């Protein structure tokens, strides 16, 4: 079916990429929690999971392995709720065996991402969050190339506090500059752990690296999210942390980040 250039993204108000040069810093976690917090604030949100070799979002939102359906305008995303306020599309849905490895070189990944970006019938969305794999390679270039036909608001960069991680994120910042992608801000994840037994705060992965990096590169620092076993557990079980622990420091951090992000999107 032929579509205009904007096609399925025509009714998507804002597109935000979640990036990090480093793996395992919490891109998918931050994507999921931001989506839940934005929904909490009454927004319609979509998540596109382009991590082909390690899709984590389906589990984090506990949608299982539904069959993907098609309508006249393309693939119907999977909705997490009957109100259809949170839509999701992931490569995870296309795998017959969840343990199967997607052993693909770049060109195949590029082709699939092209399909993914243009063929999902998102309908009306306030924000579409795009969760990416670590690095600065095929997937990232493919997403940007395909989204450029539409409008990309910018990227949220996720890092953990230690230098080994901020070092990789510095490279991702260079990637954003070279590709003309606006940096909406930096989130520091896994920032400090408060012992549930004695309330002592341990900086397991050091502290302050995200804020330093934001200063160094002249980016907005969106906030830091502490290490919280309840957050890991909620994600493991696919539960909505923002509803389960609304009084936690972690929730207030996530919610403040989502508000800052929303403000910057709307004043743009």
């Amino acid at each position: 079916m032929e579509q205009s250039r904007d096609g399925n993204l025509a009714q998507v108000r804002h597109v935000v990429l979640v990036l990090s040069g480093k793996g395992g810093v919490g891109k998918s976690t931050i994507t999921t929690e931001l989506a839940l917090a934005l929904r909490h604030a009454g927004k319609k949100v979509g998540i596109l999971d382009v991590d082909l070799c390690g899709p984590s979002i389906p589990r984090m939102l506990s949608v299982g392995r539904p069959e993907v359906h098609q309508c006249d305008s393309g693939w119907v995303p999977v909705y997490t709720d009957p109100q259809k306020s949170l839509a999701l599309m992931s490569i995870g849905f296309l795998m017959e065996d969840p343990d199967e490895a997607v052993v693909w070189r770049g060109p195949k990944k590029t082709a699939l991402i092209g399909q993914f970006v243009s063929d999902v019938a998102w309908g009306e969305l306030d924000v579409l969050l795009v969760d990416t794999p670590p690095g600065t390679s095929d997937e990232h270039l493919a997403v940007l190339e395909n989204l450029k036909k539409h409008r990309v608001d910018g990227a949220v960069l996720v890092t953990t506090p230690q230098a080994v991680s901020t070092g990789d994120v510095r490279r991702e910042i260079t990637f954003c500059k070279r590709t003309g992608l606006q940096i909406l801000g930096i989130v520091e994840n896994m920032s400090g752990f408060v012992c549930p037994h004695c309330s002592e705060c341990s900086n397991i992965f050091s502290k302050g690296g995200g804020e330093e990096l934001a200063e160094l590169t002249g980016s907005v620092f969106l906030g830091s999210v502490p290490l919280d076993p309840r957050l890991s557990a909620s994600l493991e079980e696919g539960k909505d942390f923002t509803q389960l622990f609304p009084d936690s420091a972690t929730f207030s951090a996530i919610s403040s980040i989502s508000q800052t992000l929303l403000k910057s999107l709307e004043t743009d």
Partner: protein
Amino acid sequence: MELSLSQCSKLTWTLNVHFIVLDCPGTASEQAGKSESCQGCPNQQLCASGATKAPDPAIAEIGAKLSSVKHKILVLSGKGGVGKSTFSAHLAHALASDNTKEVALLDVDICGPSIPRIMGLEGEQVRHAQKRSKPFYVDDNLAVMSIGFLLSSPDDAVIWRGPKKNGMIKQFLRDVDWGELDYLIMDTPPGTSDEHLSVVQYLSSTHVDGAVIITTPQEVSLQDVRKEIRFCQKVKLPIIGVVENMSGFVCPKCKNTSQIFPPTSGGAEKMCADLGLPLLGRVPLDPRIARSCDEGRSFLCEVPDSPAAKAYQTIVQSIQDYCSNRATEVQRAT
């Protein structure tokens, strides 16, 4: 109207996805570019032309070059940020603590090279192109090579698609003067893509002892690691064992243990039992590990008596045993 996947004929490309995932014949096979699963693949024409079938002469060159390396170990994980580089670096340090052994560490993570910083070589650069063949020496018997040494600033991004990354890996394996080595440890990026396929292919004419798989305890990590294990099985790479990293955190003040990344599905132990793989050990979270890595020092020397350092020593011993047993087996077979 909504149709399910299997009902709709328009959906050939998605069905292709299933075929590709399961049935890509491989670029060097007779069926390359011709099988049903090749339909719609952007490389179909290239594969069908036959250009991909001729074996890369580099494979034989690498085989010859690395014949003086006794043991080759890959460090893998489907998941990012679980501690592959931390583990690779400390495995290298631990093996090199025996002065009679020659050890080298190769960083195959082209887009996110962490090894230079962890090994205390941040800011070091290979200054002249002709010196690209010389690794850096952290110690007399510990050599390191990474793309990080070829970048001019810490902000430099390597925005490369697959083929360029593969070329770099080929250079590292073929052109670096490793000399006589007891151990070559290769640290990889997360995933199961270009870098992994290339390393395995380039090493196909030489003997690889096996892979050490790193995971964290949560299911979100294990689900990616299972894919990596499947990858190893597909490419017939032996698995030495699994290491569970970030396994519990002992509060330095009250000494109580917290599961920061809870093993909700039984952790690495259950996965290993299910898949019949050895669990080499569990390394607890320790803020001193992250600090040592940031400062480029060996955690094993900094705090040798910590539970994490002890866990490392046991794991390294199992890997050494595995390698020497394998060497004896190979000797017996020949």
